[in-house]
């Protein structure tokens, strides 16, 4: 997560509420290594972020959002 970029649009928290949450009005809290079951959510969150603050890696295909794998780091 590049929180310098994040402008607290909360799109990610909307798309992946188990992984991203607003803490107070603007501070973003997130789970750095969400499990594979959150993969779809996390991909949607990363795609929806208007400032591309979310970088996702799936083992088996680093940094390429479309790649399959088990478990993630975002």
């Amino acid at each position, binding site marked *: *997560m*590049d*929180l*310098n970029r*994040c*402008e*607290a649009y909360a799109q990610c928290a909307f798309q992946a509420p188990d992984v991203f949450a607003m*803490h*107070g*009005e*603007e*501070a*973003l*809290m*997130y*789970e*750095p*290594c969400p499990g594979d079951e959150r993969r779809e959510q996390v991909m949607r969150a990363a795609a929806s972020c208007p400032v591309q603050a979310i*970088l*996702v*890696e799936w083992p088996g295909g*680093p*940094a390429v959002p479309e790649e399959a794998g088990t478990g*993630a*780091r*975002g």
Partner: protein
Amino acid sequence: MPAADGSAEEFRRRGHAVVVGASLAGLRAAETLREEGFAGTLTMIGDEPHEPYDRPPLSKQVLLGRTGAGDTLLPRRRALEARWLLGTAATGLDLAGRRVRLAGGEEVRYDRLLIATGTRARPWIKETEATLDGVLTLRTAGEAARLARRLDARPRRVLVIGAGFTGSEIASACRERGIDVTVAERGPAPLVGALGGVVGAVAAELHRAHGVDLRCGITVTALEGDQAGRLRCAHLSDGTVLEADVAVVALGAVRNTEWLAGSGLAAGPRGIACDAGCRAFDVHGIVTDDVFVAGDVARSPHPLFGYQFLSLEHWGNAVAQAEVAAHNMVSPGPERRPHLWLPAFWSAQFGVNIKSVGVPPMGRELAVVQGSLTERRFAAVYGHQGRVIAAVTFDHGRWLPFYGRLIESAAPFPPDFAQVDRAPGGPRPIPAEFPDPALPTHGPTVTLSGYAPSERRVTFVPARV
């Protein structure tokens, strides 16, 4: 292998790149090397046993118990095809022979070297007290795991020594978990070194509003243990004895440059000096061409800030500088780029998003341009010699790019803009109240230094450990 002769193409095809320090800057540099077509051998040397991981969550999610200390591994941008020497410290550098010495006695030859050894937590000054059970620091995943375990055990009181960003975030996590916490800060307010006394006063209110027992203008004179060597209490400079079973020493960071002592590189307690292209200087102030530096350990001149050497302990700087350093490692002279990143950082504490751009400690004056200090929601700009030099926001982060552009375009200070919610006449500048630089303070996140023309000699003072 060529390198000093400037044959970047030869290096790119079959050179040996060695990266010392396998954390944020080291990883991002290695990825950039590969992205830019480096096809040679890549060796990553890191003294921590872990793969590169992210530190900002360690004082936030991890202390709140939401994320395990081992679960903050950095996402990779691409596959690296590197040789990883993890759990292996570099202990020396032979500049002439282009060799890095390792702890086991082995030597690794390089054609081009990137040093990204960052910093470590400044330990408690008194060694015997520092080893008491319950006295901790926070920089690494291991340290975060230990502190998180202590918080899980619900200590009666946590003492945080130093109210910089890390100390404040630790106090915030304690309060959120309902744990009593005292913060002892030598300066007049939290964050005073980084943001000045005016914004520091707002930070102090934040602490107190969340139930932190904040004590400013106070130093901890001694930590005392019981028979079993467990921390029992702390003695404060005002004579108070405070019972606490955990003390977190948050007195800033020490740069990991000791391994370069005697190497001939301009490396000392303030970091490793490099040029705007991230090439390290030697002790004579002459730039090297095969040793590069990036991240928290680097000090580099920034044209926007009077070419002062900036040491920035910021996540974003580590990433940006690593990318420039790696690019320059594989590029011939004319294609090299300067590291002109506008300093920026964030911190989350007490539910407030604190963000900054520019170099606040350079600002003599400050003007609140949006929101208000009393509401603890605002944007303020700092002025230096009639121009905007920095900005800070409390829960106003969306505006920061705008202020960043003001800094980059040397916009006049005090600013006079009609587009923000101010009364006519523009915001009134007030002194930013940075402490006298001659007085010791705890860990400002930006250190400014520069050699006056009259200062002919460079003396490196050994680090006080």
